[in-house]
């Protein structure tokens, strides 16, 4: 489980908007994500705050297609 604990901490960001959106997402979905989705979520969390927020708010398209599904979940949360 420690991977998920680490992910929870990596949802602490420099931008309040991301703190709020990621907290909501993690509360609702983290435990149910499969191994592949976890990897994609970790990849998303590695983006810089402003780039990630733009993607989550729909102001920017996912950097590559592989991010699209988890990003769609994030946008819908």
């Amino acid at each position, binding site marked *: 489980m420690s991977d998920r*604990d680490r992910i929870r901490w990596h949802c602490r960001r*420099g931008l309040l*908007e991301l703190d709020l959106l990621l907290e909501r997402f993690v509360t609702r979905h983290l435990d149910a994500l499969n191994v592949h989705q976890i990897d994609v979520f970790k990849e998303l969390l590695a983006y*810089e*705050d*402003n780039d990630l927020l733009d993607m989550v708010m729909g102001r920017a398209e996912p950097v590559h297609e592989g991010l699209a599904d988890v990003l769609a979940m994030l946008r819908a949360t």
Partner: protein
Amino acid sequence: MAIARRQFDAVVVGAGGSGLRAALQLAECNLKVAVLSKVFPTRSHTVAAQGGVSASLGNEEADNWHWHMYDTVKGSDYLGDQDAIEFMCRKACDAVIELEHYGMPFDRLDNGKIYQRPFGGHTSNYGEREIKRACAAADRTGHAMLHTLYQRNVRARTQFFVEWMALDLIRNQQGDVLGVVALEMETGEVMILQAKATLLATGGAGRIFSASTNAFINTGDGLGMAARAGIPLEDMEFWQFHPTGVAGAGVLITEGVRGEGGFLLNKDGERFMERYAPTVKDLASRDVVSRAMATEIKEGRGAGKDGEYILLKLDHLGADVIDKRLPGIREIAKKFANVDPVTDPIPVVPTCHYQMGGIPTNVHGQAVMPDGSGGERVVKGLYAAGECACVSVHGANRLGTNSLLDLLVFGKSAGEQVVRDIAADVAAMPDLPADAADRTMARLSRLDAASSSGERVSDVGAAMRRAMQAHCGVFRFPDSMAEGVKKILEVAERARHTCIQDKSKVFNTARVEALELDNLVEVALSTMISANARQESRGAHDRSDFPNRDDANWMKHTLWFKEGNRLEYKPVQLKPMTVATFEPKARVY
């Protein structure tokens, strides 16, 4: 149990703008530096700064540092120390140009010089007219600054301890600071980082309020550490608020919404700004709007289940205008308020944004405290810079774009002072007292031993935020503040009995949040008690029972000491370094 120990020339706590700027100064002088950060450095809250950094470069029109100094002194409502303000404004141009040389991607003019734009409160010729003084990198100035400084630190081989939380300062019998006790989140292990210099750069603590624009990491860790170590906190009653943050979230709704014709309603659907500012109504200045909103809520005319917010109506503008003139607002409202402003009003509330007070320092970043005989002495080994420090350049109210300037100028000067002090004091690392980590270990053991019948961290945190918002917010009422002091003392007592269910070691966010709450509570106490005592209105401290500034009695800095919640005061430094004093005048814009 023996605690692991490592030695450094300097430990910097916090890797936002000021921590990175200070660390760079140290690493470039080949000192052995450890920078501790709860999150990866470029995810520090500095990333949220959009507006810019001010410097009188004069690239757009004639400007000079003395005009900038005037604006800053006036903005501070004459509580800023004029020597420190002169120091900062004089160094602004060099600080910005240095950053440019580091590769900061500033916006530019056609002639290649750095572009500058106007910003509220910045004027030419001592208040005559608006001036273009803010340098920016699009709307990502803080982001660009963090990246530039981080890269430069990597080049200088600064050693980062990422996902480490500093817990307490170590002081010896003489009161010298000898390093910190810190927690490595990945392992849950505690370590002593011993150092000749300890520099706190932990940013603000806006999370003490329920309505805050601050990221979750802004828990005032440096302030809590200082308070527990017996170091006072200065001017903690002064917090800058923005009138319209989304209720329950804190995300800002731009003032452009009211500029485009949006207006505020109370629960009865009344456009109440017509009563408070009959001519300009919803376009009145920030403090007037905030005060009116707070009054409506206090008098029971707030909307929502608990009457806790105001409604910002813009549906009458129509979808076309909203989409075209206010891009992004619909998405923000939908995401964070769960309303579509095309059909429904947005719940908003005055929202905390910036902390003017902090750890008292001089212009060299050295922490200072009363010497017991009317003067001031340096706390050997302790330095602070950025939002967690109070130099004081912001006084009772910060001027926009001066926050990024503050962290550049004082991050660097604190770094320079550390280099000088270490060079002058070549003695070996001072010995640690035997009980160096005892207080911290006791705090951790208490948490680990606490039965699950103790107080929940989230409950105590919520009680603290509610009390601060209701009793010590943007507009302060006397009966309410007395009640607030009582409530916050209760919160502090409850915080001594927190418990956590999860006792695991690895990335235990619950433990971190319990430790963060300890820090927030110190900040909340200092704020409430300092605010209750200051019987005047000045800058961001706005009281209904004392509506005017009182220079005869209150032109002085507050110092709050944790022990006994004691207050002392020290004079404002009215004398600049080289120029004449700007005499206090009414602050009118």
